[in-house]
């Protein structure tokens, strides 16, 4: 009888929870973070999160190296020698075709084309053209797929970033990582399923904002958790002064006793959930510092990422940390690296930015590969839009700048089901328009979800009378980049 009662309460908890959390599969999945043992441990329900997968997932986890501020495609992966030939000449109207411009260049009288000051050469079996700024990324050309024909609807940073991360330029929609957490849950019950790492380069920066890792209308358990380089790698993680592990343990034991009394009195299943949350927070207190301690990495590893990886808060350190988080089962690790907004002074800024990210980005791929993790980890590298093929303002000797350009830009992806050693899509000779295989942001999202085993049209959440998707009402899986 007692057993029956217990089972009953357990079931009510589950059901109560499912209702409350919005009734999706994902809410079931988030249970893996919330109270794995109680609800989703050994019983049949543990298959629920997997039930969402429409296809065999090719990737289990994502690391997204977001290059915030928008690196120029013309100095990275989209080689356009014509621009060097036509350097200083006016952008033909037949190429611009009335494309809208930002407020920064809309009133410009002339649109002089500028060629890249950096040399390009071909790499890997695909013969991908890669700028001399990225020798390390060039060395992994056979592992990556360069998409040259990304395009977006936004032409300013805030809406473009928001669009990339949430599928809409405006509105408080859930971010990609929140959708993943909702849909697939966490693989590690001691860590959040969605983490965010922030760094800033030496170039012209554009800030980030918490709405980029928001849970939107999903439960806040799906919010990205920022891991910082400060004393508290996760906010509020550390015990206060005068408190050690033992005194925390003692307090939790007392709390559990009192809370158990409350449960007997009120019969409210939330109380038991709360007891579990305190236990998990205690486990996080050990698990997180172990994870964020980079001091025990081998020399070989440090060499791959570069010596900066030992300096907390740098892009390199975040790449290394991303590998460790991912390896530990964090579903979605989102990095942001500021500094790519090269309206002026592009030559110098690009050089510094490339120095900061080239080695560590490639190092991450090599490291995942040598650990046998690349196959199941999808790595994405890219910004929120591209840059114009014409100069912002006047060309000043060897110096120039480029404004925002939404119609084509380059990103690369690797691992987790991506066809390695490929270049996808073609842009025109001016690096301005797409002539073959355009990839929209919605297509990109649909593809990423597909690689994670999710049909983007079926991962939905009903909010205020409507079913929302990451891909809104659009999106086609880009089969050409899938292995």
């Amino acid at each position, binding site marked *: 009888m007692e057993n029956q009662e217990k089972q009953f309460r357990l079931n009510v908890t589950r059901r109560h929870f499912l*209702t409350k959390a919005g009734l999706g599969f994902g809410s079931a999945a988030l249970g893996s973070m919330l109270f794995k043992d109680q609800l989703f441990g050994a019983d049949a329900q543990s298959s629920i999160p997997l039930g969402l997968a429409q296809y065999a997932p090719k990737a289990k986890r994502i690391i997204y190296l977001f290059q915030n501020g928008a690196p120029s495609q013309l100095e990275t992966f989209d080689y356009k020698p014509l621009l060097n030939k036509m350097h200083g000449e006016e952008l033909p109207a037949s190429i611009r075709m009335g494309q809208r411009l930002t407020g920064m260049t809309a009133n410009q009288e002339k649109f002089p084309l500028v060629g890249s000051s950096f040399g390009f050469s071909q790499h890997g079996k695909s013969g991908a053209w890669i700028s001399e700024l990225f020798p390390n990324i060039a060395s992994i050309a056979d592992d990556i797929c360069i998409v040259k024909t990304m395009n977006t609807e936004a032409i300013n940073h805030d809406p473009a970033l928001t669009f990339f991360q949430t599928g809409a330029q405006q509105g408080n929609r859930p971010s990609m990582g929140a959708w993943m957490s909702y849909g697939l849950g966490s693989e590690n019950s001691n860590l959040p399923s969605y983490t965010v790492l922030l760094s800033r380069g030496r170039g012209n920066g554009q*800030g980030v904002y918490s709405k980029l890792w928001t849970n939107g209308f999903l439960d806040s358990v799906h919010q990205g958790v920022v891991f910082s380089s400060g004393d508290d790698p996760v906010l509020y993680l550390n015990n206060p002064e005068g408190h050690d592990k033992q005194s925390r343990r003692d307090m939790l034991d007392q709390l559990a006793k009192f809370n158990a009394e409350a449960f007997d009195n009120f019969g409210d299943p939330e109380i038991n959930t709360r007891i579990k949350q305190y236990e998990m927070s205690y486990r996080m207190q050990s698990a997180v510092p172990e994870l964020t301690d980079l001091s025990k990495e081998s020399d070989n590893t440090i060499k791959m990422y570069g010596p900066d990886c030992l300096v907390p808060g740098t892009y390199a350190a975040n790449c290394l940390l991303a590998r460790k988080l991912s390896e530990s089962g964090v579903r979605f690790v989102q990095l942001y690296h500021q500094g790519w907004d090269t309206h002026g002074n592009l030559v110098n800024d690009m050089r510094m930015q490339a120095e900061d990210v080239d080695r560590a980005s490639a190092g991450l791929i090599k490291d995942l590969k040598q650990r046998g993790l690349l196959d199941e980890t999808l790595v994405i590298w890219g910004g929120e839009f591209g840059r114009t093929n014409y100069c912002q303002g006047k060309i000043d000797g060897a110096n120039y700048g480029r404004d925002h350009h939404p119609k084509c830009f380059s990103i690369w992806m690797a691992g987790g089901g991506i066809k390695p050693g490929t270049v996808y899509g073609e842009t025109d000779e001016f690096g301005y328009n797409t002539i073959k295989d355009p990839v929209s942001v919605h297509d990109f999202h649909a593809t990423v979800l597909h690689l994670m085993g999710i*049909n983007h049209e079926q991962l939905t959440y009903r909010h205020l009378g409507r079913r929302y998707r990451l891909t809104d009402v659009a999106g086609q899986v880009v089969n050409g980049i899938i292995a």
Partner: protein
Amino acid sequence: MMIPIQLKKASKKKILVVSAGLMLIGLTLYFITSGKEEEGGVPDVVDFNFHVRPILSDRCFKCHGPDANKRQANLRLDTEEGAYAALKEDPSKHIIVPGDPMQSALYARLITADTAEVMPPPSSNLSLTKNEIEIIKKWIAQGAKYKKHWSFIAPVRPKVPEADEDLNPRNPIDHFIFTTLDKVGLEPNAEASKEALLKRVSMDITGLPPTIEQQERFLADKSPNAYEKIVDELLASKHYGEKMAIQWMDLARYADSHGYQDDGLRTMWPWRDWVIHAFNSNYPYSKFLTWQLAGDLLPNPSKEQLLATGFNRNHKITQEGGVIDEEYRIEYVTDRTNTVGKAFMAITLECAKCHDHKYDPVSQKDYYSMFAFFDKVPEKGLVGTIDASFADPPSMKISTADVSSILAFINKKDTMDVSVMVMKDSVGIRETQLLRRGVYDQKADTVQMATPASILTYNPKKYEQNRLGLAKWMIDPQNPLTARVYVNRIWHELFGRGLVKTSGDFGMQGELPSHPELLDWLAVEFRESGWDIKKLIRLIVTSSTYRQSAQRTSDKFQKDPDNKYYSFFPRLRLSAELQRDLLLTASGILNPEIGGPSVKPYQPKGVWEATTSGRGELAKYIQDKGDKLYRRGLYNFIKRTAPPPALLIMDASTRDQCEVTRSRTNTPLQALVLMNDPQLLEAARVLAQRTSNLNLSEDQKLDRLFRLVLCRKANEKEMKMLKGYYLQEKNKFIQQKDKAEGFLKAGEFEQIKTKNIAETAALMQVNQMIFNLDETTVK
């Protein structure tokens, strides 16, 4: 024995159904239909609004509903004419033949096994359950009668039903609630203990816990109206307005920064002070609404009326260089339109921005007709880049002279004038045009100001062609939504769920009311009382329904797992702000000052700094000092791009846009905040030091701490546990004096000397434990 069967059924659904979307429908229906259908039955009399429309709306209207552009096969099921029409391909057949399902093409298409014929088509990922098909069949058999959507029919005061006098119904609310409980075989709980009731009603009305003095006074008061006296005392408190403001600030998306990118400072806080003042003055809701929507259009508007219109300027404003001005101006008008739709009407107007609404009778033209009310503001999309302005025009200046006379409720100490954004219409400034696909430069037909006719016709003789006319339309006794939406919101605040669970959506995709008659009774009562908000709250909190205890039994779980029938009072976690207010009050460090510029209390290092580009006034978080650290949670500075993490972790709104309901999650990060936030450690420390110096025995001290925080006396068992823990900690701190000293350093609040450090540290430890109890954070 019923229960395992039901649960099994639910789990079976989960496994069978492939898509998340379908899963959602399964469960939603499972919970919204009344007892009988849950078991797979069909009601004797099928009602269009309660049984049929939810199915048609959710599964059919997307392609056969109000959206003319997406309508398939020119067939619509949302109107009687559409549904009774002859089939195009075979005029001898009809979609629905009232009274004859077998002759109705609709039914045939639901039951066919032919995947090319079946509706909804497999590609939609939607389908109907067998039971739902049976409901449709019976509805057709019974005559297939259509009705206007329930929330679009103006409420009429229903007759109050008889309730069992033994259950002690105190007012009509109880009559409605108890009658329904009786139908589902449940009884209400007995009244909660006086202590529990006092904490609950205090947290609900003022958001602050009762002092020990209040607790003792209430316990000692044996008069029959002791509780009502307390309620009146609380409603008269100046902290009532603060508590009420929190919910309104979420709806109004109030924040202290502009919200995009580098996110500069704005000074909207005098508007927030007005909201507190309006609630404390018990302005009728009709006036509260009218001033916010159209204070500037009233004859000879006062400065106060002008200030109230700041409601419509709380939206985000960009300061990103290079944006296209018109794109953002349109964005602001859109935000106002959507916010007014959600906050006052609970209609998701935004769905009709790009196309006709797929579920509700709101066309794209209706959307832009609403949009037109907010489109006459002389404003720009981009006034300037970061720190260009703390209040973009149109704005008003508030001077020290104003504050010492007509605007005395504003807590302005600085002698500098403060600018606040307000509304203004410029006649002839622009024509409002429909925007194709909602895109700012795709202008189409010109539209006039109007509201969706399906709700209540916008009669130009009754209502002016401006926001003042809109306000009059809102509070027209024939408006079916305004009163219902507000009473539901108050109910939601008090019971944790609305009588309409989807407080922000009274449209066809919203849930049906659990107690439609009670909702209508309350709405009419509220309107006829002169929209008296305090009276409404008093009515609810003095009902027996509200005064029930929170204990639940497995019988109640079985019959009503969600407690939608209110057979016990729900245990609800306090909001982020109120948890903080409770602990600071209990510790005696709360600064009860009302209003003024928002404050910056302790916050982990780097939260602002890690996200900023370095530009602007708000690039660095400069923590306040002294008294400002101990203000109530609602005064916490909200920088939208990096909101206060402790609040956000506790499910507070990011204030990015109008938020109708906060989620209530239960996460490990919340545990970390409650255990390690320096603000709470400091509160525990000060309380320990002060208690340590009282001339009381150890037992009395522990009893006092417990009582201050939990608002009740500890029972014997709890006292024993407390004492045991206290002694254990005291011994430990005697052994490790340095740890005690370190522990007691918490916070900037002045250190209070105590005789015995180990005792004080142990008391602090006990406080910390008490702060973290589940019961502490529950109202």
